[in-house]
């Protein structure tokens, strides 16, 4: 089954929540909706499910117009951010409920509930009630209910947000496995770029109700089509430094200039925003023509086994993404090395005009 959203607008009380979204999802694809809170991820999912009707635009499933078709007739399933289960039913009945409603024979129900429960590691909890389970188990139950029927479209609305870190990674990996064998469209909403990269598949970047970019996840990461897209799809966000491009040089301010990458020379000279990934700025020089910048440390943020180092140069702030745990003190004066060959360039409208050659090929997290 394929899903096609055509010029979707969604306006609630005069406020535009979704505007002009065109999206075509391939059969059997795994799609990530990436965007901040209020970017319209949930709204878009509700439109896909048929829980809400678009103000303008059409939705096609398999080429058939389903814009006005109610959610009951669409064969979709959905997992919410909150743990939604039927509290008056046991885990077994919760998972079985979509099958029971479809008049599936009891034997078949038992078999499928059993196999789904096994996949989600909740087979020993089947006779308990949802409120007796931990958050992770409750969410597994909700996922079980969504996966047990052969839905054409499965929607996950930030399903792992309310779970602890370890459980999140575990469930995320399992989820990816679960979909390999299926021929349905999966849509997964998240605010975290790392989650999108871990899940793979395709990624659609949403910003303020608009679809910025859609494509294979790694490609979207490597070749963001604009500044917003690049900022959204990097954690910590990509560093943006305004600068001036002349025929051969880039100038960040009067004093700071360096010869530019040959690739950049084809651009018309003028003002651009230059983007450099946090993981590309380093504490030690990586190549001979790295730009040495004296900076002061603002804060070192330790996240897992990585350090996000926030520093300020006299003209602009920078964020570094360092592997390992590093300790710094506020206002420490250090030198960082700024890669002059790994610059993205965005024009003043925010569109990407240059992608560094180093980004085309390998993917680094960060």
């Amino acid at each position, binding site marked *: 089954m394929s899903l096609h959203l055509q010029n979707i607008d969604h306006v609630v009380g005069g406020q535009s929540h979704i505007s002009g979204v065109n999206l075509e999802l391939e059969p059997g694809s795994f799609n990530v909706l990436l965007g901040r809170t209020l970017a319209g991820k949930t709204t878009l999912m509700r439109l896909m*499910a048929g*829980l809400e009707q678009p103000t303008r635009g059409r939705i096609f499933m398999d080429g058939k117009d389903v814009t006005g078709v*109610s*959610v*009951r007739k669409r064969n*979709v*399933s*959905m997992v*919410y951010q*909150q743990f*939604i289960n*039927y*509290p*008056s*039913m046991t885990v077994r009945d919760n998972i079985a*409920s*979509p099958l029971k*409603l*479809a008049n599936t024979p009891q034997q078949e129900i038992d078999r499928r509930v059993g196999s789904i429960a096994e996949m989600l590691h909740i087979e020993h909890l089947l006779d308990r009630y949802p409120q007796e389970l931990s958050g992770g188990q409750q969410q597994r139950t*909700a996922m079980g*209910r969504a996966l047990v*029927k052969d839905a054409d479209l499965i929607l996950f609305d930030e399903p792992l947000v309310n779970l602890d870190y370890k459980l999140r990674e575990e469930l995320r990996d399992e989820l990816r496995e679960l979909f390999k064998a299926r021929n349905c469209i999966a849509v997964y909403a998240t605010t975290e770029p790392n989650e999108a990269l871990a899940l793979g598949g395709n990624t659609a970047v949403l910003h303020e109700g608009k679809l910025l970019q859609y494509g294979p996840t790694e490609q979207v990461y490597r070749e963001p089509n604009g500044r917003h897209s690049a900022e959204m799809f990097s954690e910590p966000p990509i560093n943006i430094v305004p600068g001036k491009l002349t025929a051969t040089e880039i100038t960040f301010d009067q004093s700071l200039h360096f010869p530019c990458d040959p690739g950049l020379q084809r651009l018309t000279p003028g003002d651009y925003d230059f983007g450099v990934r946090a993981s590309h700025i380093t504490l030690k020089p990586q190549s001979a023509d790295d730009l040495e910048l004296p900076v002061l440390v603002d804060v070192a943020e330790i996240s897992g086994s990585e350090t996000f180092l926030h520093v300020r140069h006299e003209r602009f702030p920078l964020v570094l993404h360092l592997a390992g745990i590093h300790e710094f003190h506020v206002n420490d004066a250090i030198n960082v090395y700024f890669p002059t060959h790994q610059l993205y360039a965005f024009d003043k409208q925010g569109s990407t005009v240059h992608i560094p050659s180093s980004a085309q090929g390998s993917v680094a997290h960060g």
Partner: protein
Amino acid sequence: MTLWPKNLTFDNYIGIFTNSSWYMGYVNSMLYVALNMLITICVALPAAYAFSRYRFIGDKHLFFWLLTNLMAPPAVFLLPYFQLYYSVGLFDTHIAVALAHCLFNIPLAIWILEGFMSSVPKEIDETAYIDGYSFPRFFIKIFIPMIRSGIGVTLFFLFMFSWVELLLARTLTATDAQPIGMIMTRTSTASGIDWGTLAAAGVLTIVPGILVVYFVRNHIAKGFALGRT
């Protein structure tokens, strides 16, 4: 005078239970109270669901207007009700009292139930539709079990109002549907007051209330907060 009864007797209770004009008072009261609870719940459940789930023009005003019904003293409605029920031939029936009490009980029930229903996340409804539940099936199989305690508490409040309300009940009845409260006034006669029977009847009127309270005792606090925890 003594605090402890010298001669313990149950004659007054026996008298009440053997005299049909007495015990029919209890039967009448229970009948119209039960009828009233049934009608009220049937009307209030869908109404409260609508108020909690749908936005429509004037919904908040309508909700407030319902509450204003609780603000008027029953006496205001006395004469119009008497004339209305008399002219349509409902005078001195159980249903007449049950309907009259609905005026106060339905808004109260909607108010309480709306609170309980609003504490159920809307996503439950949506999940049910996604799973393929029809609305009636969802409402009965999933939604009502989720607000069980709310319904229990609501029934308690309905019972309490209807059981002790005397003004409307006695005006709209004569003999066939007379409430126990009215019959109890018979103990006061020209020849004095029959304290024994009055006391026994009084004790018996509390019994149903105690039973109802017993069943909803764990939910009452939440009920007073109208489900809005």
